């Protein structure tokens, strides 16, 4: 499911540990894939993770230093 909403992500050693979305904290239990891409000069980090029972695709904008939840689905 495409979401595209702002979220808060807690990182430890450059790895997402929890995601705060709609006031709820989801603990990241598995990192599926970490990949990068650029749009123009802006670099984005994308983490595909499992947080509690949800699959989440998180995007970090290295220009604005903000996180967005791009997709989610219950796993």
């Amino acid at each position: 499911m495409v979401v595209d909403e702002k979220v808060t992500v807690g990182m430890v050693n450059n790895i997402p540990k929890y995601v705060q979305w709609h006031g709820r904290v989801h603990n990241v239990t598995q990192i599926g894939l970490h990949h990068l891409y650029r749009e123009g000069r802006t670099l984005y980090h994308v983490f595909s993770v499992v947080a509690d029972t949800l699959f989440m695709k998180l995007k970090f904008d290295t220009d604005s230093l903000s996180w967005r939840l791009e997709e989610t689905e219950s796993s």
Partner: protein
Amino acid sequence: MQNSLKFNPESSKIMHIDLNSCFATIEQQANPSLRGKPIAVAAFVSPGGCILAASVEAKRLGIKTGMRVRDGREIYKGLIVLPPDPWKYRNVHLKLRNLIADYTNDFVPKSIDEFVLNMTDYLSLKEPPLKVVAQEIKGRIKAEIGDWLTVSIGIAPNRYLAKIAAGLRKPDGLDEINWENFQGIYSKLKLTDLTGIKERNAARLNSVGIYSVSDFYEAPLWKLKAAFHSINSLYWQMRLGGWEVDDVEFGRRSYGNSVALGRNLSTVAEISPILARLTEKTCSRLRAAGYTAGGIHLGLAYKGGGWWHEGRLIGRALFDARDVYKAAFRLLLSSPTGEGKGGNVLNVAVSCFGLSRQHSMQLEIFSDIPKKRNLTEAQDNINGRWGDFTVASAQSFGGAKVVMDRIAFGGIKELEEFTLMH
């Protein structure tokens, strides 16, 4: 009379690495809930979308690349279909490329999911047999790139047989073809199992009494010449004998972009924004590589299997998308497409050929070339900073939803272009 060319007695030095079910496996790597399930990555998730990659589980059910989504769902109702996410696949390709570079710098990516490694230098420095190195590479891919990713590795004295060996067992295979075991392996293969031998070539071989891969290997050169009528006869004899003939890299001769349309389009008005988008994309890649083009080619594929294409030399150096679009549009008008002409278009392909690197260009009477140069340079700088198509012709924005970022099928030329470094 038998083949006089003996099988290459040298030890194997070529390794072919093939990432199994590439796009689908990477999607399963990213989303663990998809693992172990039949999934497919398709150009479009709609029933008419073409399946680009099926997961190992889907392949076991008989779902194959090239099928329509609706056909895949007929085989298995619960098939999960995903749209492609090119940057995921490009990143895995780059990670594989970095890992392979730890073993040799003499490697060539043959496509987004295939690499050919020449391990001659590595083996002269290190002791372990190539199979041990292959096992190590497999282990490192799982540990460093993704635990769900599997590769099939083929080892042989030449590139061709290494590819055949990589295809012997999928997924997660590791096989070698060498002078000791080639006869046993050839006896189990059909002619059409060989890369490059499909029905038509098989029929040619059948016509001279060659019905199996063993027959093919043992055939004398005159017989192969009777089948192929060309130098290919010698190349085939050498390939199957483990001698190298495929150590060739072909330079780029054109730049092109194509799109599979999600729905059938039949009017020039519907197709022209897509054409504009494709020419913008092609020209931006052309300029980024420092080329100009001398000609333009347009190809259209129609519903029902028909195909029309035409190329035209323009007679001057092209680099501005507006000029390329004009030439492509003229070709479109001459095609059997449009009101009253019939023909529902399914695919549009544009390419520029006659590439040259020109640092100084012929000035024109009716066109201000330096001004065009400055404009395209400014456009490229803005798009380089803010992203593709930030500035583009108004016409091309109409094609934005149709022409998306995609990975060329089997192509490796685009791999030169993408990098994450700026």
